[in-house]
Protein backbone atom coordinates (compact mmCIF):
# COMPACT_ATOMS: atom_id res chain seq x y z
CA UNK A 1 0.00 0.00 0.00
CA UNK A 2 1.61 3.22 -1.09
CA UNK A 3 0.93 6.52 0.53
CA UNK A 4 1.20 9.69 -1.43
CA UNK A 5 2.31 13.00 -0.07
CA UNK A 6 -1.11 14.27 -0.92
CA UNK A 7 -2.76 12.00 1.64
CA UNK A 8 -6.43 11.23 1.09
CA UNK A 9 -9.29 13.32 -0.21
CA UNK A 10 -7.53 16.61 -0.50
CA UNK A 11 -6.14 16.77 3.04
CA UNK A 12 -2.55 17.87 3.03
CA UNK A 13 -0.19 15.34 4.54
CA UNK A 14 2.51 16.36 6.94
CA UNK A 15 5.04 14.61 4.73
CA UNK A 16 4.33 16.93 1.87
CA UNK A 17 7.20 19.41 1.67
CA UNK A 18 4.88 22.00 0.24
CA UNK A 19 2.88 22.14 3.47
CA UNK A 20 3.80 24.94 5.83
CA UNK A 21 3.32 23.16 9.10
CA UNK A 22 2.69 26.14 11.33
CA UNK A 23 0.01 27.68 9.17
CA UNK A 24 -1.92 24.71 7.92
CA UNK A 25 -1.72 22.03 10.52
CA UNK A 26 -0.98 23.93 13.68
CA UNK A 27 1.80 24.38 16.09
CA UNK A 28 2.52 21.47 18.39
CA UNK A 29 4.27 23.15 21.27
CA UNK A 30 4.66 21.33 24.55
CA UNK A 31 5.38 24.68 26.18
CA UNK A 32 2.30 25.61 28.22
CA UNK A 33 0.43 28.75 27.10
CA UNK A 34 0.79 30.59 30.43
CA UNK A 35 3.82 32.04 32.20
CA UNK A 36 5.73 29.58 34.43
CA UNK A 37 4.22 29.36 37.90
CA UNK A 38 7.10 27.79 39.77
CA UNK A 39 10.89 27.93 39.75
CA UNK A 40 11.18 24.47 38.37
CA UNK A 41 8.73 25.17 35.57
CA UNK A 42 10.66 28.29 34.58
CA UNK A 43 13.92 26.35 34.66
CA UNK A 44 12.51 23.54 32.56
CA UNK A 45 10.62 25.50 29.93
CA UNK A 46 13.49 27.77 28.94
CA UNK A 47 15.45 26.41 26.03
CA UNK A 48 19.14 26.89 25.59
CA UNK A 49 20.92 26.83 22.28
CA UNK A 50 20.40 23.57 20.42
CA UNK A 51 17.74 22.18 22.73
CA UNK A 52 14.22 21.30 21.77
CA UNK A 53 11.15 19.77 23.35
CA UNK A 54 9.70 16.43 22.41
CA UNK A 55 6.42 15.28 23.81
CA UNK A 56 6.07 11.57 24.65
CA UNK A 57 2.54 10.46 25.28
CA UNK A 58 0.02 10.39 26.77
CA UNK A 59 -0.54 7.60 24.28
CA UNK A 60 2.67 5.75 23.64
CA UNK A 61 3.41 2.06 23.84
CA UNK A 62 6.39 2.48 26.11
CA UNK A 63 4.97 4.42 28.97
CA UNK A 64 3.19 1.74 30.99
CA UNK A 65 -0.09 3.51 30.89
CA UNK A 66 -1.16 7.03 30.05
CA UNK A 67 1.80 9.15 31.02
CA UNK A 68 2.91 12.24 29.25
CA UNK A 69 6.58 13.19 29.44
CA UNK A 70 7.89 16.41 28.01
CA UNK A 71 11.50 15.72 27.15
CA UNK A 72 14.04 18.45 26.61
CA UNK A 73 16.61 17.02 24.25
CA UNK A 74 19.85 18.17 22.75
CA UNK A 75 20.23 16.09 19.64
CA UNK A 76 19.57 12.58 20.85
CA UNK A 77 20.55 13.16 24.47
CA UNK A 78 17.95 13.84 27.08
CA UNK A 79 18.74 17.01 29.00
CA UNK A 80 15.73 17.23 31.27
CA UNK A 81 12.22 15.97 31.54
CA UNK A 82 8.89 16.88 33.04
CA UNK A 83 6.33 14.13 33.57
CA UNK A 84 2.73 15.28 33.32
CA UNK A 85 0.30 13.08 35.20
CA UNK A 86 -3.42 12.91 35.68
CA UNK A 87 -4.59 11.16 32.54
CA UNK A 88 -5.77 8.19 34.55
CA UNK A 89 -6.87 10.09 37.64
CA UNK A 90 -10.16 8.59 38.73
CA UNK A 91 -10.62 10.29 42.08
CA UNK A 92 -10.43 7.04 44.03
CA UNK A 93 -9.76 8.75 47.34
CA UNK A 94 -12.83 10.93 46.97
CA UNK A 95 -15.00 8.04 45.85
CA UNK A 96 -13.95 5.99 48.86
CA UNK A 97 -15.27 8.72 51.13
CA UNK A 98 -18.73 8.15 49.76
CA UNK A 99 -18.58 4.38 49.95
CA UNK A 100 -19.00 1.83 52.68
CA UNK A 101 -15.95 0.16 54.13
CA UNK A 102 -16.81 -2.97 52.17
CA UNK A 103 -17.38 -1.02 48.96
CA UNK A 104 -14.12 0.88 49.34
CA UNK A 105 -12.17 -2.34 48.82
CA UNK A 106 -13.57 -2.58 45.29
CA UNK A 107 -12.17 0.87 44.52
CA UNK A 108 -8.69 -0.19 45.59
CA UNK A 109 -8.25 -3.00 43.05
CA UNK A 110 -7.79 -0.99 39.87
CA UNK A 111 -5.04 1.13 41.33
CA UNK A 112 -2.14 -1.13 40.48
CA UNK A 113 -4.12 -3.39 38.27
CA UNK A 114 -1.22 -5.70 37.56
CA UNK A 115 -0.88 -6.57 41.25
CA UNK A 116 -4.39 -6.05 42.56
CA UNK A 117 -4.14 -8.14 45.69
CA UNK A 118 -1.37 -5.89 46.95
CA UNK A 119 -3.65 -2.91 46.46
CA UNK A 120 -6.47 -4.43 48.47
CA UNK A 121 -4.26 -5.63 51.28
CA UNK A 122 -3.22 -2.37 52.99
CA UNK A 123 -6.75 -1.00 52.76
CA UNK A 124 -8.14 -4.12 54.35
CA UNK A 125 -5.40 -4.15 56.98
CA UNK A 126 -6.09 -0.51 57.89
CA UNK A 127 -9.82 -1.22 58.24
CA UNK A 128 -9.02 -4.21 60.43
CA UNK A 129 -6.86 -2.04 62.66
CA UNK A 130 -9.69 0.47 63.03
CA UNK A 131 -12.15 -2.28 63.89
CA UNK A 132 -9.68 -4.24 66.06
CA UNK A 133 -10.40 -7.37 64.07
CA UNK A 134 -8.12 -10.34 64.23
CA UNK A 135 -7.76 -12.23 61.02
CA UNK A 136 -7.80 -16.04 61.32
CA UNK A 137 -4.51 -17.76 60.58
CA UNK A 138 -5.78 -19.71 57.63
CA UNK A 139 -6.97 -16.49 56.01
CA UNK A 140 -3.56 -14.92 56.57
CA UNK A 141 -1.83 -17.86 54.95
CA UNK A 142 -4.21 -17.74 51.99
CA UNK A 143 -3.57 -14.01 51.67
CA UNK A 144 0.18 -14.57 51.61
CA UNK A 145 -0.14 -17.43 49.15
CA UNK A 146 -2.33 -15.57 46.69
CA UNK A 147 -0.38 -12.36 46.92
CA UNK A 148 2.96 -14.07 46.37
CA UNK A 149 1.46 -15.66 43.26
CA UNK A 150 0.44 -12.20 42.22
CA UNK A 151 3.98 -10.98 42.84
CA UNK A 152 5.34 -13.65 40.51
CA UNK A 153 2.81 -12.65 37.88
CA UNK A 154 3.70 -8.98 38.24
CA UNK A 155 7.43 -9.58 38.01
CA UNK A 156 6.94 -11.88 35.02
CA UNK A 157 5.18 -9.03 33.28
CA UNK A 158 7.96 -6.65 34.31
CA UNK A 159 10.54 -8.85 32.63
CA UNK A 160 8.46 -8.86 29.49
CA UNK A 161 8.04 -5.17 29.13
CA UNK A 162 11.59 -4.44 30.22
CA UNK A 163 12.65 -6.31 27.13
CA UNK A 164 9.86 -4.71 25.11
CA UNK A 165 11.12 -1.23 25.90
CA UNK A 166 14.55 -2.25 24.76
CA UNK A 167 13.13 -3.47 21.49
CA UNK A 168 12.77 -7.20 22.09
CA UNK A 169 9.36 -8.35 20.99
CA UNK A 170 9.46 -12.01 22.05
CA UNK A 171 9.89 -11.91 25.83
CA UNK A 172 6.66 -9.98 26.36
CA UNK A 173 4.72 -12.82 24.78
CA UNK A 174 6.52 -15.37 26.94
CA UNK A 175 5.72 -13.20 29.95
CA UNK A 176 2.09 -13.19 29.08
CA UNK A 177 2.11 -16.98 28.79
CA UNK A 178 3.61 -17.15 32.28
CA UNK A 179 1.18 -14.62 33.58
CA UNK A 180 -1.78 -16.28 31.93
CA UNK A 181 -1.19 -19.49 33.82
CA UNK A 182 -0.95 -17.71 37.14
CA UNK A 183 -3.92 -15.52 36.40
CA UNK A 184 -6.05 -18.54 35.47
CA UNK A 185 -5.08 -20.11 38.77
CA UNK A 186 -6.10 -17.02 40.66
CA UNK A 187 -9.32 -16.92 38.65
CA UNK A 188 -10.22 -20.37 39.89
CA UNK A 189 -9.57 -19.13 43.43
CA UNK A 190 -11.04 -15.63 43.36
CA UNK A 191 -13.35 -15.65 40.38
CA UNK A 192 -11.54 -12.94 38.48
CA UNK A 193 -8.49 -12.89 36.25
CA UNK A 194 -7.23 -9.43 37.03
CA UNK A 195 -9.09 -7.19 39.48
CA UNK A 196 -9.52 -9.91 42.02
CA UNK A 197 -11.68 -8.32 44.75
CA UNK A 198 -10.73 -11.23 46.95
CA UNK A 199 -9.68 -9.81 50.30
CA UNK A 200 -12.40 -8.94 52.76
CA UNK A 201 -12.26 -7.18 56.09
CA UNK A 202 -11.37 -10.00 58.44
CA UNK A 203 -10.24 -12.54 55.88
CA UNK A 204 -10.68 -13.61 52.31
CA UNK A 205 -13.72 -14.29 50.20
CA UNK A 206 -13.48 -17.99 49.40
CA UNK A 207 -11.49 -20.94 50.60
CA UNK A 208 -8.96 -22.89 48.56
CA UNK A 209 -10.73 -25.25 46.21
CA UNK A 210 -9.72 -28.40 44.40
CA UNK A 211 -9.28 -26.76 41.04
CA UNK A 212 -6.98 -24.10 42.42
CA UNK A 213 -4.90 -26.62 44.36
CA UNK A 214 -4.49 -28.95 41.42
CA UNK A 215 -3.50 -26.11 39.09
CA UNK A 216 -1.14 -24.72 41.68
CA UNK A 217 0.50 -28.06 42.32
CA UNK A 218 0.94 -28.69 38.63
CA UNK A 219 2.34 -25.21 38.03
CA UNK A 220 4.73 -25.40 41.00
CA UNK A 221 6.18 -28.63 39.72
CA UNK A 222 7.41 -26.93 36.57
CA UNK A 223 7.63 -23.31 37.72
CA UNK A 224 11.30 -23.33 38.50
CA UNK A 225 12.42 -24.79 35.18
CA UNK A 226 10.02 -22.57 33.29
CA UNK A 227 11.29 -19.45 34.98
CA UNK A 228 14.87 -20.52 34.39
CA UNK A 229 14.11 -20.93 30.70
CA UNK A 230 12.52 -17.51 30.46
CA UNK A 231 15.38 -15.97 32.34
CA UNK A 232 17.90 -17.67 30.10
CA UNK A 233 16.32 -16.00 27.11
CA UNK A 234 17.24 -12.59 28.46
CA UNK A 235 20.12 -12.91 30.88
CA UNK A 236 22.43 -14.54 28.39
CA UNK A 237 21.56 -12.07 25.68
CA UNK A 238 24.54 -9.83 25.16
CA UNK A 239 22.57 -6.92 23.77
CA UNK A 240 20.17 -6.95 26.69
CA UNK A 241 22.89 -7.07 29.30
CA UNK A 242 25.19 -4.54 27.69
CA UNK A 243 22.39 -2.06 27.18
CA UNK A 244 21.21 -2.31 30.75
CA UNK A 245 24.51 -2.39 32.59
CA UNK A 246 25.56 0.98 33.95
CA UNK A 247 22.33 2.62 32.80
CA UNK A 248 20.38 4.85 35.13
CA UNK A 249 22.62 4.32 38.14
CA UNK A 250 21.29 5.47 41.46
CA UNK A 251 23.14 5.35 44.75
CA UNK A 252 21.51 4.43 48.04
CA UNK A 253 21.67 7.94 49.52
CA UNK A 254 19.73 9.40 46.64
CA UNK A 255 17.28 6.53 46.63
CA UNK A 256 16.45 7.07 50.29
CA UNK A 257 16.08 10.80 49.76
CA UNK A 258 13.72 10.12 46.87
CA UNK A 259 11.61 7.95 49.22
CA UNK A 260 12.04 4.92 47.01
CA UNK A 261 11.17 1.49 48.30
CA UNK A 262 10.92 -2.04 47.03
CA UNK A 263 13.18 -3.61 44.42
CA UNK A 264 14.33 -0.20 43.18
CA UNK A 265 15.75 0.57 46.62
CA UNK A 266 17.14 -2.91 47.16
CA UNK A 267 19.00 -2.70 43.87
CA UNK A 268 20.98 0.23 45.26
CA UNK A 269 22.20 -1.72 48.25
CA UNK A 270 19.69 -0.94 51.00
CA UNK A 271 18.18 -4.24 52.24
CA UNK A 272 14.87 -2.67 53.23
CA UNK A 273 11.89 -4.98 52.84
CA UNK A 274 8.75 -4.27 54.83
CA UNK A 275 8.15 -7.97 55.30
CA UNK A 276 11.25 -8.01 57.49
CA UNK A 277 11.59 -4.38 58.57
CA UNK A 278 8.02 -3.97 59.76
CA UNK A 279 6.55 -7.48 59.67
CA UNK A 280 2.86 -7.94 59.09
CA UNK A 281 0.59 -10.92 58.59
CA UNK A 282 2.41 -14.26 58.99
CA UNK A 283 5.73 -13.22 57.48
CA UNK A 284 7.62 -13.62 60.79
CA UNK A 285 6.97 -17.36 60.49
CA UNK A 286 8.16 -17.69 56.91
CA UNK A 287 11.73 -18.08 55.77
CA UNK A 288 12.92 -16.14 52.79
CA UNK A 289 15.86 -13.96 51.81
CA UNK A 290 15.90 -10.36 50.73
CA UNK A 291 17.75 -10.12 47.42
CA UNK A 292 19.90 -7.01 47.30
CA UNK A 293 22.39 -5.69 44.80
CA UNK A 294 24.76 -2.77 45.08
CA UNK A 295 25.18 -1.49 41.53
CA UNK A 296 21.93 0.46 41.33
CA UNK A 297 21.65 0.31 37.56
CA UNK A 298 18.89 -1.10 35.35
CA UNK A 299 20.46 -4.53 35.30
CA UNK A 300 20.56 -4.62 39.09
CA UNK A 301 16.87 -3.70 39.32
CA UNK A 302 16.05 -6.42 36.84
CA UNK A 303 18.13 -9.05 38.64
CA UNK A 304 16.65 -8.17 42.02
CA UNK A 305 13.19 -8.82 40.68
CA UNK A 306 14.32 -12.13 39.22
CA UNK A 307 15.61 -13.21 42.59
CA UNK A 308 12.39 -12.10 44.22
CA UNK A 309 10.46 -14.45 41.98
CA UNK A 310 12.50 -17.33 43.30
CA UNK A 311 11.94 -16.18 46.88
CA UNK A 312 8.22 -15.95 46.20
CA UNK A 313 8.19 -19.55 45.04
CA UNK A 314 9.88 -20.49 48.30
CA UNK A 315 7.21 -18.62 50.26
CA UNK A 316 4.40 -20.27 48.31
CA UNK A 317 5.92 -23.64 49.06
CA UNK A 318 6.04 -22.91 52.77
CA UNK A 319 2.46 -21.65 52.76
CA UNK A 320 1.27 -24.84 51.14
CA UNK A 321 3.14 -26.99 53.61
CA UNK A 322 2.09 -25.09 56.71
CA UNK A 323 -1.46 -24.17 55.78
CA UNK A 324 -3.50 -24.25 59.00
CA UNK A 325 -7.13 -25.27 59.21
CA UNK A 326 -9.83 -22.99 60.41
CA UNK A 327 -12.17 -20.26 59.29
CA UNK A 328 -11.27 -17.94 56.46
CA UNK A 329 -13.10 -14.92 57.76
CA UNK A 330 -13.55 -13.32 61.12
CA UNK A 331 -17.07 -12.87 62.39
CA UNK A 332 -18.11 -9.29 61.78
CA UNK A 333 -21.40 -7.43 61.69
CA UNK A 334 -22.67 -6.48 58.30
CA UNK A 335 -22.77 -2.77 59.09
CA UNK A 336 -19.29 -1.75 60.09
CA UNK A 337 -18.89 1.34 62.22
CA UNK A 338 -15.37 1.63 63.63
CA UNK A 339 -14.82 4.07 66.44
CA UNK A 340 -13.29 7.42 65.46
CA UNK A 341 -9.57 7.09 64.92
CA UNK A 342 -6.80 6.68 62.39
CA UNK A 343 -4.91 3.72 61.05
CA UNK A 344 -1.97 3.24 58.73
CA UNK A 345 -0.99 -0.04 57.12
CA UNK A 346 1.94 -0.57 54.80
CA UNK A 347 2.91 -3.70 52.92
CA UNK A 348 5.67 -4.77 50.59
CA UNK A 349 4.22 -4.85 47.10
CA UNK A 350 6.08 -5.79 43.94
CA UNK A 351 6.89 -2.14 43.37
CA UNK A 352 7.61 -1.04 46.89
CA UNK A 353 5.79 0.16 49.95
CA UNK A 354 2.10 0.17 49.26
CA UNK A 355 0.17 1.80 52.10
CA UNK A 356 -3.23 3.02 53.15
CA UNK A 357 -4.04 5.66 55.76
CA UNK A 358 -7.64 5.73 56.89
CA UNK A 359 -9.36 8.29 59.09
CA UNK A 360 -12.63 7.13 60.58
CA UNK A 361 -15.24 9.45 62.06
CA UNK A 362 -17.46 6.79 63.56
CA UNK A 363 -19.81 6.42 60.61
CA UNK A 364 -20.02 3.54 58.17
CA UNK A 365 -17.98 5.40 55.54
CA UNK A 366 -14.28 6.26 55.77
CA UNK A 367 -13.74 9.94 56.41
CA UNK A 368 -10.45 10.02 54.53
CA UNK A 369 -8.90 7.19 52.58
CA UNK A 370 -5.37 7.97 51.57
CA UNK A 371 -3.53 5.55 49.32
CA UNK A 372 0.22 5.73 49.13
CA UNK A 373 1.59 4.30 45.95
CA UNK A 374 5.27 3.53 45.30
CA UNK A 375 5.18 4.05 41.53
CA UNK A 376 4.27 7.70 42.12
CA UNK A 377 7.55 8.29 43.94
CA UNK A 378 9.61 6.22 41.56
CA UNK A 379 8.42 8.38 38.69
CA UNK A 380 10.05 11.37 40.34
CA UNK A 381 13.38 9.60 40.12
CA UNK A 382 12.95 9.34 36.37
CA UNK A 383 13.83 13.03 36.32
CA UNK A 384 17.12 12.27 38.06
CA UNK A 385 18.07 9.21 36.06
CA UNK A 386 17.15 9.96 32.48
CA UNK A 387 19.18 13.12 31.77
CA UNK A 388 22.45 12.35 30.06
CA UNK A 389 21.18 9.27 28.26
CA UNK A 390 19.86 8.81 24.78
CA UNK A 391 16.12 8.81 24.25
CA UNK A 392 16.03 5.07 23.64
CA UNK A 393 17.92 4.41 26.85
CA UNK A 394 15.66 6.82 28.64
CA UNK A 395 12.70 4.54 27.97
CA UNK A 396 14.71 1.60 29.29
CA UNK A 397 15.39 3.48 32.53
CA UNK A 398 11.73 4.21 32.90
CA UNK A 399 10.81 0.58 32.32
CA UNK A 400 13.31 -0.61 34.90
CA UNK A 401 11.62 1.49 37.57
CA UNK A 402 8.40 -0.43 36.81
CA UNK A 403 5.73 2.22 37.25
CA UNK A 404 2.05 1.39 36.88
CA UNK A 405 0.05 4.44 35.94
CA UNK A 406 -3.10 3.24 37.63
CA UNK A 407 -1.37 3.60 40.95
CA UNK A 408 0.47 6.77 40.01
CA UNK A 409 -2.67 8.60 38.97
CA UNK A 410 -5.07 6.94 41.40
Amino acid sequence: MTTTTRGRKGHASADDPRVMLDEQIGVFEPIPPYPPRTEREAEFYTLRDGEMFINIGPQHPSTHGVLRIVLKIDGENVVDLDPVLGYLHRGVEKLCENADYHQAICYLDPLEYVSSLFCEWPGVMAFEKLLDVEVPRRAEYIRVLSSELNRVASHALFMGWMALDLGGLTPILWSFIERDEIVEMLASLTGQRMLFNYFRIGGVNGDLNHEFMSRLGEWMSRATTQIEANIGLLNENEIFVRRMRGLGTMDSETALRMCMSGPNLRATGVPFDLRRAHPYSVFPELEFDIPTRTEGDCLARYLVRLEEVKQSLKIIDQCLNNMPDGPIMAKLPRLLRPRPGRAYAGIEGPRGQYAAYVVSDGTDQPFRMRIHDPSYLHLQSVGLLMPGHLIADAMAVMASLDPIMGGVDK
Partner: protein
Amino acid sequence: MDPALRRRLERRFGERLTGPIRQRHDETELRIGAGDSGEVIRALHDEPEFGFTFLADLAGVDTGTTMQVVYHFWGASTPDWLRLVVDGLPRDDPRVPSVTALWKGAEWMEREAYDMFGITFEGNRDLRRIYMPPDYQSFPLRKDFFLADDAARSPGAGVRHMEQTHAPRNATPAATIRRTRA
Protein backbone atom coordinates in the same frame (compact mmCIF):
# COMPACT_ATOMS: atom_id res chain seq x y z
CA MET B 1 3.05 -0.02 70.70
CA ASP B 2 6.37 1.20 71.93
CA PRO B 3 6.22 2.89 75.34
CA ALA B 4 9.93 3.72 75.23
CA LEU B 5 9.35 5.69 72.04
CA ARG B 6 6.53 7.59 73.64
CA ARG B 7 8.70 8.54 76.60
CA ARG B 8 11.51 9.72 74.31
CA LEU B 9 9.10 11.80 72.28
CA GLU B 10 7.47 13.37 75.31
CA ARG B 11 10.83 14.21 76.81
CA ARG B 12 12.10 15.81 73.62
CA PHE B 13 9.02 17.55 72.24
CA GLY B 14 6.79 17.83 75.30
CA GLU B 15 6.05 21.52 75.08
CA ARG B 16 5.30 21.49 71.36
CA LEU B 17 2.69 18.76 71.40
CA THR B 18 -0.89 19.94 71.04
CA GLY B 19 -2.32 16.77 72.49
CA PRO B 20 -1.30 13.51 74.17
CA ILE B 21 0.76 10.99 72.22
CA ARG B 22 -1.62 8.25 71.19
CA GLN B 23 -0.54 4.73 70.47
CA ARG B 24 -2.66 2.05 68.90
CA HIS B 25 -1.60 -1.25 67.38
CA ASP B 26 1.77 -0.54 65.81
CA GLU B 27 1.48 3.22 65.39
CA THR B 28 2.49 6.19 67.52
CA GLU B 29 0.84 9.51 66.81
CA LEU B 30 2.16 13.00 67.57
CA ARG B 31 0.21 16.19 67.06
CA ILE B 32 1.92 19.54 66.64
CA GLY B 33 1.13 22.94 65.18
CA ALA B 34 2.29 24.30 61.84
CA GLY B 35 4.92 26.59 63.33
CA ASP B 36 6.85 23.71 64.92
CA SER B 37 6.66 21.30 62.05
CA GLY B 38 9.95 22.21 60.36
CA GLU B 39 12.01 21.84 63.53
CA VAL B 40 10.30 18.72 64.77
CA ILE B 41 10.71 16.89 61.47
CA ARG B 42 14.32 17.90 61.25
CA ALA B 43 14.89 16.66 64.79
CA LEU B 44 13.18 13.36 64.06
CA HIS B 45 15.33 12.94 60.96
CA ASP B 46 18.71 14.04 62.29
CA GLU B 47 18.89 13.05 65.92
CA PRO B 48 20.32 9.57 66.51
CA GLU B 49 17.87 8.69 69.28
CA PHE B 50 15.05 8.89 66.74
CA GLY B 51 16.59 8.31 63.32
CA PHE B 52 13.36 8.47 61.28
CA THR B 53 15.06 8.68 57.94
CA PHE B 54 12.41 6.98 55.85
CA LEU B 55 9.44 9.12 54.93
CA ALA B 56 6.70 6.62 54.31
CA ASP B 57 3.85 8.96 53.45
CA LEU B 58 2.82 12.60 53.31
CA ALA B 59 -0.89 13.27 53.13
CA GLY B 60 -3.32 16.12 53.54
CA VAL B 61 -6.48 15.71 55.58
CA ASP B 62 -9.46 18.06 55.66
CA THR B 63 -11.31 17.54 58.91
CA GLY B 64 -14.11 19.89 57.92
CA THR B 65 -13.03 22.51 60.47
CA THR B 66 -9.26 22.56 59.91
CA MET B 67 -6.69 21.25 57.48
CA GLN B 68 -3.96 18.87 58.55
CA VAL B 69 -0.83 17.47 56.99
CA VAL B 70 0.00 13.97 58.15
CA TYR B 71 3.49 12.49 57.86
CA HIS B 72 4.33 8.85 58.43
CA PHE B 73 7.89 7.82 59.22
CA TRP B 74 9.74 4.58 59.64
CA GLY B 75 12.89 4.34 61.74
CA ALA B 76 15.13 1.47 62.65
CA SER B 77 15.05 2.45 66.35
CA THR B 78 11.46 1.42 66.94
CA PRO B 79 9.04 -1.25 65.68
CA ASP B 80 6.28 1.35 65.33
CA TRP B 81 5.21 3.61 62.50
CA LEU B 82 5.47 7.22 63.63
CA ARG B 83 2.62 9.45 62.59
CA LEU B 84 3.08 13.21 62.83
CA VAL B 85 -0.09 15.23 62.47
CA VAL B 86 0.46 18.92 61.79
CA ASP B 87 -2.84 20.23 62.99
CA GLY B 88 -4.73 23.48 63.10
CA LEU B 89 -4.09 24.82 59.63
CA PRO B 90 -6.73 27.37 58.61
CA ARG B 91 -9.01 26.20 55.82
CA ASP B 92 -8.68 29.36 53.74
CA ASP B 93 -4.90 29.57 53.46
CA PRO B 94 -3.13 26.52 54.85
CA ARG B 95 0.66 26.86 54.80
CA VAL B 96 3.27 24.43 56.05
CA PRO B 97 7.05 24.37 55.64
CA SER B 98 8.17 21.91 53.01
CA VAL B 99 10.30 18.85 53.76
CA THR B 100 11.87 18.70 50.32
CA ALA B 101 15.19 19.78 51.81
CA LEU B 102 15.34 16.49 53.72
CA TRP B 103 13.57 14.23 51.21
CA LYS B 104 13.52 15.30 47.60
CA GLY B 105 10.93 12.61 47.02
CA ALA B 106 8.44 14.59 49.08
CA GLU B 107 8.15 17.11 46.26
CA TRP B 108 5.48 15.20 44.41
CA MET B 109 3.65 14.19 47.58
CA GLU B 110 3.42 17.87 48.48
CA ARG B 111 2.30 18.69 44.96
CA GLU B 112 -0.51 16.22 45.35
CA ALA B 113 -1.54 17.69 48.72
CA TYR B 114 -1.54 21.13 47.11
CA ASP B 115 -3.56 19.94 44.15
CA MET B 116 -6.17 18.13 46.20
CA PHE B 117 -6.44 20.48 49.21
CA GLY B 118 -4.79 23.77 48.41
CA ILE B 119 -2.16 23.43 51.11
CA THR B 120 0.87 25.57 50.26
CA PHE B 121 4.23 24.04 51.12
CA GLU B 122 6.72 26.85 51.59
CA GLY B 123 10.06 25.93 50.11
CA ASN B 124 8.80 23.47 47.51
CA ARG B 125 10.35 24.52 44.21
CA ASP B 126 7.67 22.97 42.10
CA LEU B 127 4.31 23.57 43.73
CA ARG B 128 1.89 23.23 40.86
CA ARG B 129 -0.99 20.94 40.12
CA ILE B 130 -0.18 17.39 39.31
CA TYR B 131 -3.41 15.49 38.66
CA MET B 132 -5.84 18.21 37.68
CA PRO B 133 -5.34 20.44 34.64
CA PRO B 134 -3.20 23.50 35.37
CA ASP B 135 -6.08 25.96 35.13
CA TYR B 136 -8.43 24.03 37.43
CA GLN B 137 -10.00 26.24 40.06
CA SER B 138 -11.18 23.97 42.87
CA PHE B 139 -9.41 21.61 45.24
CA PRO B 140 -11.16 18.26 44.86
CA LEU B 141 -10.51 16.46 48.14
CA ARG B 142 -11.76 19.31 50.28
CA LYS B 143 -14.96 18.58 52.11
CA ASP B 144 -16.76 21.47 50.46
CA PHE B 145 -16.18 19.97 47.02
CA PHE B 146 -19.12 17.73 46.31
CA LEU B 147 -19.33 14.98 43.75
CA ALA B 148 -22.39 14.88 41.54
CA ASP B 149 -23.56 11.57 42.94
CA ASP B 150 -23.11 12.64 46.54
CA ALA B 151 -26.82 12.28 47.03
CA ALA B 152 -27.15 12.91 50.75
CA ARG B 153 -24.82 15.85 50.90
CA SER B 154 -24.75 17.66 47.60
CA PRO B 155 -26.86 20.72 46.98
CA GLY B 156 -25.30 20.83 43.53
CA ALA B 157 -22.27 22.84 44.62
CA GLY B 158 -18.87 21.91 43.32
CA VAL B 159 -19.39 19.86 40.19
CA ARG B 160 -22.60 20.80 38.41
CA HIS B 161 -24.48 17.83 37.09
CA MET B 162 -27.18 18.22 34.47
CA GLU B 163 -29.95 16.36 36.18
CA GLN B 164 -29.49 17.67 39.74
CA THR B 165 -32.23 15.29 40.73
CA HIS B 166 -30.91 14.32 44.11
CA ALA B 167 -30.25 17.72 45.60
CA PRO B 168 -32.09 18.02 48.90
CA ARG B 169 -34.07 21.21 48.94
CA ASN B 170 -32.87 22.91 52.07
CA ALA B 171 -29.24 21.91 52.04
CA THR B 172 -26.53 24.52 52.11
CA PRO B 173 -22.82 23.81 51.84
CA ALA B 174 -22.18 24.90 55.41
CA ALA B 175 -24.71 22.41 56.73
CA THR B 176 -23.56 19.57 54.55
CA ILE B 177 -19.78 19.65 54.98
CA ARG B 178 -18.74 16.49 56.75
CA ARG B 179 -16.70 17.17 59.89
CA THR B 180 -14.78 15.07 62.30
CA ARG B 181 -12.65 15.46 65.39
CA ALA B 182 -10.81 12.16 64.93
